């Protein structure tokens, strides 16, 4: 089946939200930014006419557009508007992938009988979004992701473009190479030296030529120039578990070795959980034996954790309870059953836990700054089995 991918891009999102909230700003050049690093976060179309662009220093924007309205970033409000837009999109297809606060891909393959022709669907989405948020957007529909994105950029603002399979060749004829995703300033420079301006120019050289020049990226470039690109739309789901596992170079029955692997894995899993600010209640140990027989054992803790030490201690208990009758090929540890909502405070503070949390925090900071090799847990690997 031919895929049909829809890309939706909100028009001057932050600035438009401000104009919705402050109708007196409609028609005026609005520039959002300033609070962080002093650069422009977004500019209304009116401000863009003066040459104001995203990521431009604020002082530069003030020079270009002295009469502009400069507003601070209200991220929470934009999130809220974004959430409303996504709710509209979720009703279109189960395959919705939000890629940024104001952009999303939707796989609309085979939804014709539900939504009617593509033009009708576009109208429906645009109207629903306008109704919910008073905002406008631009929509592109094409056979794959990168063409859909290109399509959505073609008729901004408040427009739409549909690219059918038969239109692709003509489109590529005149497509400037800097519109192809993955072409940064460096590659663009290489291209320029070779006299390449449009996508079709890329095809004057063989794929091998590009692979030699650009490595793996060469294959992608060659495919894009043919109008071929990824179509998979992956809806974002919050992860439900977090795990780490390793297969050994040689099977082992050495308990000390297994413990050391567990320490590393508990650390990896713990760091990941802490990074995402989640705690899990269920700890699972996975062991694959030399015979490929796999066993998993899990236990549920009374209190959710993201502490490396508690993950390790729990996994070790599970390991010690297993009878290792043969050598082990793989070991892994996972944490799932994530806690949500609020955490219950205890009557009596758990000093052991507090110390472990302090230790985790300190190690995470060192790891983030100097890399994982900078500091390792020494003693935890030597804990005697109980």
């Amino acid at each position, binding site marked *: 089946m031919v895929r049909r991918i829809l890309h939706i891009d909100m028009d001057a999102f932050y600035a438009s939200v401000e104009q919705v909230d402050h109708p007196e700003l409609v028609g005026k050049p609005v520039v959002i930014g300033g609070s962080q690093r002093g650069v422009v976060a977004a500019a209304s179309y009116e401000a863009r006419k003066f040459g104001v662009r995203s990521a431009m220093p604020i002082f530069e924007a003030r020079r270009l557009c002295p009469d502009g309205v400069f507003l601070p970033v209200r991220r929470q409000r934009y999130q809220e508007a974004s959430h409303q837009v996504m709710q509209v999109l979720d009703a279109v297809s189960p395959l919705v992938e939000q890629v940024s606060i104001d952009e999303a891909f939707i796989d609309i393959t085979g939804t014709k009988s539900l939504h009617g022709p593509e033009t009708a669907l576009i109208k429906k989405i645009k109207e629903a979004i306008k109704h919910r948020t008073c905002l406008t957007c631009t929509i592109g529909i094409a056979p794959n992701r990168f063409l859909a994105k290109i399509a959505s950029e073609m008729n901004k603002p408040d427009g739409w473009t549909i690219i059918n399979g038969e239109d692709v060749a003509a489109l590529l004829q005149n497509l400037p190479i800097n519109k192809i995703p993955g072409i940064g300033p460096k590659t663009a420079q290489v291209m320029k030296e070779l006299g390449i301006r449009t996508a079709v120019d890329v095809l004057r050289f063989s794929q091998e030529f590009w692979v030699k020049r650009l490595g793996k990226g060469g294959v992608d470039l060659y495919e894009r120039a043919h109008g071929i690109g990824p179509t998979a739309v992956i809806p974002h789901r919050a992860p439900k578990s977090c795990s780490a596992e390793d297969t050994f170079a040689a099977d082992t029955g050495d308990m000390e070795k297994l413990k050391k692997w567990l320490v590393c894995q508990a650390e990896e899993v713990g760091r990941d959980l802490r990074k995402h600010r989640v705690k899990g209640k269920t700890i699972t140990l996975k062991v694959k034996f030399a015979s490929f027989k796999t066993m998993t054992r899990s236990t549920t803790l*009374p209190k959710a954790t993201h502490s490396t030490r508690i993950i390790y201690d729990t996994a070790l208990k599970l390991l010690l309870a297993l009878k290792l009758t043969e050598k082990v090929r793989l070991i892994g540890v996972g944490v799932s059953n994530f*806690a*949500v*909502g*609020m*955490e*219950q*405070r*205890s*009557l*009596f503070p*758990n000093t052991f836990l507090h110390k472990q949390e302090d230790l985790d925090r300190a190690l995470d900071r060192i790891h983030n700054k100097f890399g994982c090799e900078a500091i390792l847990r020494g003693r935890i690997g030597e804990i005697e089995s109980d």
Partner: protein
Amino acid sequence: MKIQMETALLTGVLQKVLSITEKKTNIPILSNTLIKATDHNAIEVSATDLEISLRTEVGAQIESPGTATVSARKLLEVVRELPYERIILEDQPGGKLQVHAGRARFELQTIPAEDFPYLNFHEGSEFSRCDASLLRKSLSKTLYGVPTDEDHFSVAGLYWHPVEPDGLRFVSCDGHRLAYFQVPVESFPDLRLTKGIIVPRKGVQEIIRILEKESEASLSIDENCLILKTPGTVLSIQLLDAEFPEYQVIIPEERPFSLELDRDAFFSALKRMAVLTDNRWRHVRFSVKENVLRLEAGNPEIGNADDVLDVEYQGEEFTIAFNVRYVMDSMQSIESEKIRFEWLDTFHGGVFVGQDDPDYFSLVMPMIV
């Protein structure tokens, strides 16, 4: 052994002993009840889980004395199904106990009575009479705070704590909340508790159950056991050998803020909020503002709820969240038309007390995001 007795009486005693017998045990005899027929007009029925033992007497017509142990659960199930007023229990060759009523006949497997553990009811120790209904009330009001499992920070038992100058406190504490009920020590005149004792959760439940139908009771403490005697029944509970947490230190002495609530209105509002809580989202948020208490609960998965109660309050705005069940448990224990919610800040527990129930105290630790 051959006994003839009223079916209803046997059902009653079996119900009493069933909760003592161990459900999950690898010692089969602990699921059995010991039936002893020695007297002419009564039998003794006993059970034990090795930590708690119960013996109770019930009227029966003894045709020939003897002893037998049989599965308490099976015997109860059989007896319950019999539509006859009188039944006969008789031992059979081959270690069977025959239950016989009308034309129905059951043969249950037994284990020899000699294998039944020795039950020590400390008959020689000194018993002191106590106020049975006050004891039951004290235990019932605080049982909810006794944790079902023991962990590092809580003890799975109810603490009987003598306090200066002349009080006895029944204290429960599960690591997240604390409850106590204080009675004058004279209510238990000769018990002479010099230091606190910890009665395991199951023991507390058994005492409550036994006292449901009794008005007379006496207590004794002997060799780390608490023994309760009522006419016809004796219960022995092995006390927990543990250190009860220093619960007084976590009660904030100063609770500068408070508001008064109508217990019934507050409880039904909590119940409404609880509809939108579940095992993962348990909180109810309290927002106190001038003359209103706003309650909110809910989560992205089910939905949200809020409700507002009028209160008399003039202080600063304050927001705190609690596990809704914990607050409801406290409300169910307070016997007072008006209750007070007192607090210090979001780091210390909120206190719930009742005007007409001054001897009851409860503290619930907040939840944080």
